[in-house]
């Protein structure tokens, strides 16, 4: 937990099941839907792992003014898109945690605390966490979030974090796991598999 990571947010509110973070970032640094992130909890003893299921950009008067104008110059557009820190809020669904170097795919003992740094998981960490897919029932059963889409996006990113020849086998295994948990809802399973397949073909 001592390595220097890019902070993509700071926790503003949280629960055992998820956390919300706010920050001002430049557009190129914005996190992505389905991204893997973590935030420290229990005084740094654990790192809670989350999947980003929503990213919202807060109101910004200057951006609104420029948007309403006839024609912002290319330089002003580039300034807004590349230089200006955008006030964003991200919401993450908790799918596990890490304690003493071990990944656990269950809800954590405690949530992160306010202003804890939210950082992205490194590809090696994503690979390590997704060696097992026990988090799938937890994620897929979450109400009030686009669970299937966020799981599909997260699994595609987990595939991307692997060597090219391992990606398709990983997605096949992930699809089989999803089928175990969604076998009673074939419509939902089909949509999720199509999402995964798009990632496998890419």
């Amino acid at each position, binding site marked *: 937990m001592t390595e220097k990571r890019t902070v993509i947010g700071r926790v503003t509110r949280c629960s055992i099941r998820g956390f919300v973070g706010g920050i001002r970032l430049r557009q190129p640094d914005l996190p992505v839907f389905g991204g893997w992130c973590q935030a420290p909890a229990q005084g740094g003893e654990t790192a809670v792992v989350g999947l980003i299921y929503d990213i919202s950009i807060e109101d910004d008067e200057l951006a609104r*003014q420029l948007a309403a104008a006839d024609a912002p110059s*290319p330089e002003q557009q*580039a*300034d807004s898109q590349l230089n*200006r820190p955008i006030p964003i809020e991200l919401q993450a669904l908790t799918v596990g945690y890490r304690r003493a170097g071990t990944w656990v795919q269950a809800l954590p003992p405690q949530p992160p605390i306010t202003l804890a740094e939210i950082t992205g998981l490194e590809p090696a960490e994503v690979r390590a966490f997704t060696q097992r897919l026990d988090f799938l029932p937890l994620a897929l059963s979450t109400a009030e979030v686009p669970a299937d889409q966020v799981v599909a996006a997260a699994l595609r990113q987990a595939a991307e974090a692997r060597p090219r020849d391992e990606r398709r086998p990983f997605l096949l295994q992930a699809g089989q796991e999803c089928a175990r948990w969604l076998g009673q809802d074939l419509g939902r399973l089909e949509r999720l598999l199509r999402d995964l397949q798009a990632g496998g073909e890419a």
Partner: protein
Amino acid sequence: MFEAGIVSLDLARLLSQVDQLGAETAQRQVERAAALPKAQAALHQAAGLDPSAIQQRIERAGDRWRGASPGSEAWQISLPAPPLPPRWHAIGADGSQVYPDRHAAAQFCLVNVGSLCLTHGSGEAPVASSRPRLLFRQDELTTTQGEAVDAALVNGMRDVAEMTELADLAERFPAEPTLALLDNGLLLWLALQEFERRAPEVDALLKHYLGQMDRLRRTQAALAGVIDRPRGTNLLRLVELCMLPPEQVNPESARLRRFPNLVDRDLLETLLPPGHRSAMFQVVSPLNAAFEARGHGVHFFYLNTGYDGQIARVEVPAWVAEDADRLSCVHAGILEECRLTGIPYVLVRAHELAVVTQHDRSALESLIAGALLRQGIEPRISQKSTTKRWTASRRRHRL
């Protein structure tokens, strides 16, 4: 009309005073409307006076008269914007500060300068920068007389830092058209307030400030200070002075105001169509004489920015006022910069980059507390600060 919010002010007690404020504002508007035609007629009349007769009046008005001196342009002239080159640079710098606080855990002050350097016609993102400087050493927080550095001196340091930032940026484009903007007048405010006291710190800051203007003059930069919603009355005072017979002008009579409810902006609103600028005038003050001695005498004109009919006051040094290319860059460049935001875009962004919010300040104080702890010092704020924090979150009336 009101959004639900939390206020601690006893608004009920203010209601009658707020009503009086509204009535007073309406009354002032009526008085302004009545005075304006008279002031415009006086401007017209004064513009026709012989320049030597005007100069004679200015000389008789004495050192404390704060009016304007006319230049070579006709007073009521209204000039459209010249064209801009296809590629030019706009630079804006703005500063903010944290003043020394004797109640804080450690003594420090902060000056933060934000700047934006935008190359029009490049299609590229501008270069944004924010340069914070923490002042904490004994010699930075104490004057040569042993007094604690006050808010006015910190403001002076901030103004010097802004001008330094502009000079640093302008030197990157020594031979290209460059508009360098500040969002205030060019006369160093601290020196304006403290000019007669001549404290060594003020003199040192003024010397440094003028040195940065020297650097800017050596580039092709067109330096200008933009004042939004200006309250200046230099031109009106000149008009009022011209209404007096020459033999009656003396320091006492020169200070009497004929149009106390008006400002220069009122006078020029009807004269300037969108995009046009007024004639150029020079500020008359002892401080400006010191600027003039260094070749930086401050001149000014008013400009209809074309954004909602707003009139801005633009101050430029003599070497811009007397250089047609640099003056064109100021006039047309400010208009282009105001097109979307009403005040120059580079200044809007420079302010955004400079501002130190309460949140920023709290984060800085946390860093300082950490640094003290690492030195074995318990960071303690004063009891007064402590009690303010106790009451900051008290129950408040919901509107």
